[in-house]
């Protein structure tokens, strides 16, 4: 019986795919037809770009740099914003004649798939690779190969411990500490709170929760009643918060992060407890707008939003280009395990006092827009490079 139903499922999929392929065929076709042309051009191109990349270039106008991007996860607004900003920022340098179009490898894929992305970037003879790693250690050997080939490798958003690989990102622990400190002070160092965390075991979540715990250690009168995972998902965050509110109706506050804060606040709105807890929010326009709505009915409500900026990647692009141009990095400004990490400051913290400022940024942005900051060329040069 099962075999038969499986067979039917297979047939249905086939039929559906035939319909799809019929509509989609024209898209695939041009790709094939362009092939011979590329073939003809390729050999000369390869020769031209084979020159060692990291050497200081005397006349930047003679050679344009090609920078590759590797991103293994596309279903998040953070990554979408990141890719869009990278393309945008690179245009500046293209106009100056410093870089070619970015070579972007960005599809949902696993560790082996990202290794393939990186290998393909190497095969395309890029001068630098910006990688947002999908695995903390799984790419190490491949990245080391790239470094050995003389490619400048920068890991953005997630710190890696690979010799020769630079990191550009915010300090995740400090990021979490900022909102945790704010919460502790708003509570006057006393009260009952709950925590909603991201994926247990995800490196960013682990260091963030460490940061929160470090802060709370200094406030012995703040009691963490419970902690659960909202899986960085709005709906799950809402569900978890509803359960917490049912169990602890007199909650004084809660700490949460990225994506789940909107769900948690919606749960509070739905439950409407006699005393509203002090809420940790997130730096997303949708949250700020919800916050503004809530304030109309509950003027005492208080929250904070610490931006987690996708702009670290375009900042990383600026750093990469300046390094390729042979400018000297001020090693004393770098941190991290290998002393190869560029730590980017959090661009904006929104509290009740500057909520309007945040809302102004959001005015012409979609709801999913994340409060952001890209360091300018001058800021990058004055912060990280030898003058």
């Amino acid at each position: 019986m099962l075999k038969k139903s499986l067979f039917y499922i297979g047939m249905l999929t086939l039929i559906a795919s035939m319909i799809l392929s019929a509509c989609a065929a024209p898209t695939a076709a041009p790709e094939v037809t362009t092939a011979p042309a590329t073939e003809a051009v390729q050999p000369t191109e390869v020769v031209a770009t084979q020159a060692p990349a990291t050497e200081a270039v005397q006349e930047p106008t003679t050679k344009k740099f090609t920078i590759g991007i590797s991103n293994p996860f596309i279903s998040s607004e953070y990554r979408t914003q990141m890719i869009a900003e990278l393309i945008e920022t690179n245009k500046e340098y293209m106009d100056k004649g410093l870089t070619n179009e970015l070579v972007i490898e960005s599809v949902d894929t696993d560790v082996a798939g990202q290794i393939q992305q990186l290998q393909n970037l190497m095969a395309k003879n890029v001068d630098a690779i910006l990688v947002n790693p999908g695995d903390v250690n799984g790419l190490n050997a491949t990245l080391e190969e790239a470094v050995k080939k003389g490619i400048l490798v920068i890991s953005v958003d997630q710190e890696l411990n690979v010799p020769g690989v630079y990191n550009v990102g915010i300090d995740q622990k400090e990021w979490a500490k900022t909102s945790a400190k704010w919460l502790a002070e708003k509570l006057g160092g006393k009260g009952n709170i709950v925590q909603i965390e991201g994926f247990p075991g995800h490196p960013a979540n682990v260091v963030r929760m460490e940061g929160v715990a470090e802060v709370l250690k200094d406030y012995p009168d703040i009691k963490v009643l419970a902690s659960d995972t909202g899986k960085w998902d709005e709906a799950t965050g809402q569900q978890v918060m509803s359960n917490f509110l049912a169990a602890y109706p007199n909650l004084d506050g809660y700490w949460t992060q990225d994506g789940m804060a909107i769900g948690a606040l919606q749960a509070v709105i739905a439950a409407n407890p006699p005393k509203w807890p002090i809420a940790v929010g997130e730096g997303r326009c949708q949250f700020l707008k919800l916050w503004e709505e809530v304030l109309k009915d509950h003027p005492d409500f208080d929250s904070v939003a610490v931006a987690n900026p996708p702009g670290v990647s375009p900042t990383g692009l600026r750093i990469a280009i300046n390094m390729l141009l042979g400018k000297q990095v001020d090693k004393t400004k770098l941190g991290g395990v290998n002393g190869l990490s560029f730590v980017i400051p959090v661009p904006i913290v929104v509290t009740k006092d500057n909520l309007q400022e945040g809302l102004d940024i959001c005015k012409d942005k979609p709801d999913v827009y994340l409060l952001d900051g890209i360091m300018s060329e001058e800021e990058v040069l004055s912060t990280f490079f030898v003058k």
Partner: protein
Amino acid sequence: MRRTSWETLTTKYPALFSIILIVVALLINLSLQPNLFSRDTLNSNLRVFLPSVLLAVGQAFVILGGGIDISVGGIVSIVNTVLAVQVGLNGSVEKMWLYVGISLLIGIICGALNGFFIAVLRLQPIITTYATSFLFGGLALFVLPNPGGGIPQSIANIYRSTTPLGIPLGFYIIAILILLWQYLRSTRYGSYLYSVGGKADAAYETGVPVTWINFSTYVISGLMAALSGIAITMLSGSGNAEIGSPMTLTAITAVVIGGTPLSGGIGGITGPIMGALTLGIIQNIVSFAHVNTWWETFVKATIIVVALAAPGIINLFGRRKS
């Protein structure tokens, strides 16, 4: 029912279409990436494709026997985490071999568990292996809650950069698999496997040990998943409990692209091997064709869908003509 010659051909040689497909895909890839056949490029491609190839071979056995195994990703994860935790970044070669042996045993045990539920207790394969996939995935998470650990780089390099006689290691492994399969096919086990997948009831009545054949396909699948887990661990050099879960669907897609229908009883392992390689090559094509970033996923999916649908379309036209 009249059969067109194409249909006759594909029934006789189930891998035929997949071989045509891989040749076409290779030619397109070659035109976009002229150094595709250089030793280093071939090797770096094969070492990435091999984990899916191994997984697809195991899956092919199960599907041939009329079942399906969606727990293989979980087995890959267990093997990966066990190797990463037990061998460690500074482990010795002896320790590595010991745990490679233990990994294979783990694969066999996991497969036997699936086989027991499905062949002996007669539970639904989809539901059972879906459930055990969480069992295995959960165990992996228990072994290694946070990504980390790993195997010594020198051992990883055996997998990553060995090219005996200038030919990448992957070629040898694939050749051995195909030879083993050709032998197995000619044995009694081979014909039993096809008869169980084709018509289990009839097979039972003619004295084929259906239960044991079914059971064995899951054990083989578990063993191949363990080999795949060893390969991916040597490729990445590190442990991550989530590493296997996205690989399951890739393996099943590879089997189907390779001309093995999910209804069972038809196909072999050559097709699925070609299917797994083709999926990797498709990724290369998308990568080298300078597809606009926002279209990359769509274009890749479209090519896969076309590849899946092509035999059906050819049959459709064949029928119209006759």
